[in-house]
């Protein structure tokens, strides 16, 4: 795997961490909670090397 791919996957994992943290911290806004989870889907599929 090339260096840039390793950076890319590291950034994906970092973003997943941010989104999960925001999801946990969100207390009131259900739209934001839903959005955090929706945005997570492609990132998780990429890190798992599914799509």
């Amino acid at each position, binding site marked *: 795997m090339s260096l840039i791919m390793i950076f*890319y996957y590291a950034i994906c994992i970092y973003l997943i961490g941010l989104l999960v943290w925001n999801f946990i911290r969100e*207390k009131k806004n259900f739209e934001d909670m839903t959005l955090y*989870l929706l945005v*997570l*889907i492609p990132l998780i*599929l*990429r890190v798992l090397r*599914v*799509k």
Partner: protein
Amino acid sequence: MARTWIAKAILLALFLAVLVQGGSRLFRHRHFDITVVAGPGVTKVVHLSDYCQGLKGTMADTLVFFMEGKEAGGKMLIMSNTHANEPEGFLAALIIIENAVVEKGTLLVIPQFNHSASRNTRPGDGYPLFYEIATEWGKKKFRMGNRDASPLDQWPDPDVYIHYPDRQLLSFIDVRNVNRTWPGRPNGPLMERVTFAAMEIMRQEKVDVAVDIHGAETMFPVTNCIVAPEKSQKIATLATLTVKAREGFDNHVEPSPSGFRGLSHREIGDYSATLPFLLEAPIPFLDQPTGPKTEKLLLDGKDPFLLSLAGKKKLFVPYDESGWPLEKRVGQHCSVTLEIMRQYSKKSPEKAIIVQDIPRYADIVKNGVGHYFHDPKGAEKNKIYLN
């Protein structure tokens, strides 16, 4: 507070359901292997990476089937699934691998030329992930691929793809389109390594003729044709005239543009002694103004919107209620390939390529594509390949 956690739990459960349901389907598609039963003509099977070390262990590595005749003669390389969303070429290549017997010369067949693209899909266009062909022993299942290699295997895309070695500026997506990366280089992006390996096959094995099999939209003028550079045009013209006269289907010759780089029909001819030909058959599934992109549309090529457009003379091929079924498209490819072989053999008798048991257009239209596939359960284990 409790209400928030309940809502979060429900959202999380929905999220996991979507992730598992969607992800598992995509995972199964990427890891599904198509069974190929090597026919009596197959003498050896090697990997494309044997000709370019940079492909070893990557998703772009693919099988190369050698079919050597008892008598020495010319050599023909057949490539299909260059664009893995044009399955008629792939099915024609499988029919050849499973049935052909070479008497003179050698056939080399790479059925999944863009192997990475065959494990990719285009969910944004609603492509089916699989399609099935009816055979006498049940249904044979195939992956439906995409035009370009998967970003899982080659990434990132540049802003603009600078073609090697001509430095022509091409669309960024063409860096993953194996019919824009010819003639390739051994240390370039993955798709350039694929085309470089194919060029090495042609140079090392001294291949005389290369056939790259595709499908094209009915609204695209370069369809139902052979695309050929100057040095292949005589054979291409004779082949199209012969199939029209003898087998009754339309086919014409399109000249390979010298200013558009990266295409097989241009670069193979310019960078080797091989005569290149690119075959196109109409595939309504790829047209934009159609109904849903279903497996049925892929197989029978029937679409009411295209029928309406045909009435307004907007299509470049004849089109009626019978659509453009898979049997016709695969049959055309088999017949045109055989005719190129015959015309080349007439022109160079000392390098003739004589092959038996490849069905022609009328046979495939009559019997169906599935008739020519063999049951893996009844085959010897050493004849079965997963691709």
